């Protein structure tokens, strides 16, 4: 369980580690018993609605979108923390969605998650040693006599002291708790980590410490991240590629630089121009969006963005746009952006 050994694989050639194909996660409350009792018809929440993604080994894919767009659901559906409705997730050649419980448990050693809220994601009644060591014990990768040593090592890796091990979560600040969450995710020496808004609950100066830590760990251990956030500057800093999500769909993907400097989808443009910039560079021609995110229970027909899009045409209300690849490496789903 010694770390840092595994990172030899991170060589230059591009190697697809994770391939998500047409992944769908719908929450259906239409046929429930409660609906029958109350006569309430229930609803179908289309949280993730046919998402395809590719992540290369050793890279970070930043997933950005507003709250309620399905980012976290997607992250969890990939790990099967929420069972996907349909579609496939291929991790290193294995279709994760088809695994039985035993194989899935084995697979989980290789895929981990860091949660958003460091106050809610640590059990307040367990010591740090228990919290980090549980995964090691459950997976049987360390003998109980070795666990303490592993936890010591993990705590040092994330910048905490070994004697913190006997403390409880409430004795730590938000930033320290998030480090504990990171140590827990690293315990099984995974290859792939879903970082679900790992810094959004932290203050600016602490946020920078945690981003730095995640970035360093990625390099040292050859990790691959799916980094979910609503903060574009954080995503831009840490990601190699960015995927922009809107109401259950990916609307644009591409290399970080292209997305940030030359976004093609009107939603990406609006999202970027809405960010207030410290250097004042973001003002001027702001693409303004009106209204709120529509409900995923009854999403707009055609292009889901047409209700807020400043350039929407008739076509956008009727037909769902296909993804097409542009010359500069971006893939965009918009009727107004054509491939040539």
């Amino acid at each position, binding site marked *: 369980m010694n770390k840092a050994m595994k990172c030899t694989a991170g060589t230059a050639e591009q190697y697809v580690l994770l391939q998500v194909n047409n992944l769908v996660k719908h929450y259906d409350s239409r046929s429930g018993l409660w609906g029958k009792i109350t006569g309430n018809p229930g609803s179908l929440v289309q949280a993730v609605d046919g998402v395809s993604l590719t992540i290369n080994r050793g890279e970070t894919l930043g997933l950005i979108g507003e709250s309620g767009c399905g980012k976290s659901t997607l992250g969890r559906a990939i790990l099967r923390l929420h069972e996907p409705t349909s579609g496939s997730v291929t991790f290193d050649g294995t279709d994760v969605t088809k695994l039985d419980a035993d194989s899935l448990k084995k697979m989980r050693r290789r895929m981990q998650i860091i949660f958003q809220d460091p106050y809610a994601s640590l059990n307040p009644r367990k010591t740090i040693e228990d919290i980090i060591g549980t995964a090691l014990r459950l997976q049987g990768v360390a003998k109980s006599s070795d666990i303490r040593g592993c936890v010591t090592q993990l705590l040092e890796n994330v910048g905490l002291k070994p004697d913190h091990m006997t403390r409880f979560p409430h004795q730590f600040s938000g930033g320290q708790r998030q480090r504990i969450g990171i140590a827990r995710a690293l315990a099984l020496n995974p290859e792939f980590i879903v970082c679900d808004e790992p810094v959004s609950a932290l203050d600016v100066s602490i946020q920078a410490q945690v981003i730095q830590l995640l970035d360093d760990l990625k390099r040292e251990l050859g990790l691959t991240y799916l980094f979910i956030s609503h903060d574009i500057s954080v995503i831009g800093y840490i990601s190699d590629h960015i995927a922009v999500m809107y109401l259950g769909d990916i609307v644009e993907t591409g290399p970080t630089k292209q997305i940030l400097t030359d976004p093609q989808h009107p939603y990406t443009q609006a999202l970027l121009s809405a960010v207030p910039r*410290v250097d004042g560079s973001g003002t001027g021609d702001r693409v303004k969006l009106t209204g709120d995110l529509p409900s995923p229970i009854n999403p707009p027909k055609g292009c889901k963005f047409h209700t807020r899009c400043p350039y929407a045409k008739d076509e956008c209300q009727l037909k769902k746009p296909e993804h097409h690849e542009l010359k500069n490496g971006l893939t965009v789903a918009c009727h107004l952006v054509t491939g040539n």
Partner: protein
Amino acid sequence: MTEAQPILSISNLQTRFATRYGLVTAVDGVSLDVMPGECVGVVGESGSGKSVTFASVMGLIKPPGWIDGGSIKFEGQELVGMSERSYRSLRGKYIAMTMQDALTALNPALTCGFQIMEVLLAHDSQISGSARNRIREARARVIEMMMLVRIPSPETRLNDYPHQFSGGMRQRMMIAIALACRPKLLIADEPTTALDVTIQAQVLELITDIRQTLGMSVILITHDLGVVAEYCDRVAVMYAGQVIESGPTKSVIGQPSHPYTQGLLRSIPNLANLDKRIRPIEGQVPELIDLTPGCRFIGRCDVREEACTQRVEMRNIGQGRTVRCIQPKGNVQ
């Protein structure tokens, strides 16, 4: 400074709380002036005393907390020690505050329309006559306010409860309540923290529009330096209960003097220049219990020296800027 009288003048404010762990000095010697029509940003991390400072201004500090010294003057009138009765005629009418979390700040059992109307009925002397007449008049004003904050179809939404609105709309409802009596000063405590960027831009632009049309002053409490850079005329940076740097936004953000402000700016990834590595400020904000008299930032500062263990006073460094550091550097690399 200009000859105009500040609309709000806080000087040397001390607010303390008695806790079972000891005496917490949440606000320690904060001074701040706000001019008519001006937008002042107050930035700081959690626990820096931003919210407590303005809760003190609003007279909302209740035991075990108390204002231990200093003065808060609103249009020349001293607010510290003012009776609750006089405060009630001031709050909501002349100074209004929007709270951080719109969902918990609104009463879930009352319709949003009623919550706006309540303020008008309590304060607006123009609304008079029989009870029925007053309600009719107030209702018209509520619809007007809801239109001002761009709530679609206000005539029907008036009767909706807070849970029926989205986060951005709730925040705009709070602003409608705060602005109902056209106050001279709006204190907006983290008005956009819980909101997405596209909605954040809507809310901040709304506040700016209304500020310009009503000519009111705005204090924007936030932890987002980007928001300050775009929307505020002046900024005060707070750290561990003190204002450590203040001045015109452009010059403070362009050329921060205090090591903390510099560190804060280096901690933010810059979208325009992504190759620039961020440099976090190491360590954590100190506990506010039993503080030593010296500089609060001493434990995290790269340029500390012996003299920093003595009390550091706010110093004027010209161009309307002040800084609480014994060796402020003029520039950030």
